[in-house]
């Protein structure tokens, strides 16, 4: 099996597990919808305010829902020592990382799509006419975040307070992705799109290149026993 096949196998395993339990997706989704509800009650935003606070709110929701999901990603592997099994399997450890990372990425995307749609619905806010930009920004912002989140989830899994440690480690390191994604989303919300849009999209591309490569290289040191 080559590297890509191994990655695909790990990814498929995670998708299958999630399909059968639906633990991560349900909790992430419910959390996301609750944040939107809280947003309404906390600010009672009109359309101008939605335009102003919407990008920040969306990404805050994505970030915290993502953390919720990624905390589960390795918690499941600890039960029955299945991580040990993965490590003993004849696969490249980089493929383990990549497979788990893509699974987290995928779950976050599913949740984000539903949250974006409900945001459009609840706040009467037309995201659809910016669809291609929103898709680009969401993909880029989520990829880097999922990559850092996956390696840090693997780190915090080994600590005494794994649920608490993940956000403490992840939020500061993922900050550039959040800044870039929020700025790009804000620029995409305005009509016509702000000139900052392409700049921040490029920024996210560079950030992703660095923070997908680096965890991929460092992951074997996290697993090593």
């Amino acid at each position, binding site marked *: 099996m080559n590297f890509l096949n191994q990655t695909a196998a790990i990814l498929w395993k995670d998708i299958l597990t999630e399909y059968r339990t639906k633990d991560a997706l349900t909790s992430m989704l419910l959390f996301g919808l609750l944040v939107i509800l809280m947003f309404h009650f906390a600010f009672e935003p009109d359309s101008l305010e939605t335009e102003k606070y919407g990008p920040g709110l969306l990404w805050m929701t994505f970030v915290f829902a993502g953390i919720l999901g990624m905390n589960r990603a390795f918690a499941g592997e600890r039960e029955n020592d299945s991580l040990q099994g993965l490590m003993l399997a004849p696969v490249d450890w980089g493929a383990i990382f990549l497979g788990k990372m893509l699974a987290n990425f995928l779950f976050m995307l599913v949740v984000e799509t539903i949250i974006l749609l409900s945001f459009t619905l609840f706040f009467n806010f037309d995201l659809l006419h910016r669809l291609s930009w929103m898709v680009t920004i969401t993909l880029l912002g989520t990829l880097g975040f999922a990559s*850092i989140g996956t*390696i*840090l989830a693997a*780190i*915090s899994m*080994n*600590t*005494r*307070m794994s649920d608490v*440690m993940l956000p*403490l*480690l992840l939020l*500061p*390191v993922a*900050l*550039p992705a959040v*800044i*870039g994604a929020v*700025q790009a989303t804000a620029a995409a919300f305005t009509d016509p799109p702000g000139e*900052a849009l392409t*700049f921040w999209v490029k*920024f996210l591309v560079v*950030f992703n290149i*660095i*923070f997908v490569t*680096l*965890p991929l290289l*460092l992951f074997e*040191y*996290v697993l*090593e026993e």
Partner: protein
Amino acid sequence: MKSQNSLAILTFVLMLVALYAIFIYAPTERTMGPIGEVQRIFYFHVSSNWTTFLATFFVFLNSILFLMRGTRELDIRAATAAELGTIFGAFGLISGTIWAKPIWGIWWTWDARLTSFFLLWLILIGYQMLRRVVDSPGQRARLSAVFGILAAVDVPIVYMANRWWRTQHPAPVIAGGAGSGLDRQMALTLCITMVAFTVLYFYLWKLRCELERTGDTVEALQRRLQTQGLEVR
């Protein structure tokens, strides 16, 4: 031990010289008006921030070296550098806000430098928190090294992101500061203070590493006594 004592004496002398330079030799800053004396905090402020960056760089460097070679000594160096970075960073943050209140009229502004420095400080604390919640020493060293590298790479990116962001949306007026060009005497004072802080940093680092090694030795001795059936307290 001997080199440690000479380092201590050097730190002491340099600190005295720095204090003299700051309070007597350096001229009073004029543009800040009657409260120009406040500017003297600048020398300590810049020096402690510089030391924080230096410490972070050592965390980064020793973390990489640790992953390559895996010796306990490198782990000790990275961990203690992070501790010192947190202390000097706290000092930098506090001295900065003390200066900002009379000059800017506010304690804090979300300027690029302030924001990224604050984030760096939080990351350093997170690093130490991580070390506390991992039980096995070998694992602790590896995990914190990985986090140290990720975090250190992140800091310049955060700084640049903030700068680009703020240039597109100008921040509230930031007046004062040394601005363009520094008076010659002021520059010299700053140099002396920075050297003094750097030496202080290396002195403390050495002491802290020594303490950690002693702790290791004590632990090893205790374990040896325990295997011989003796209870140690």
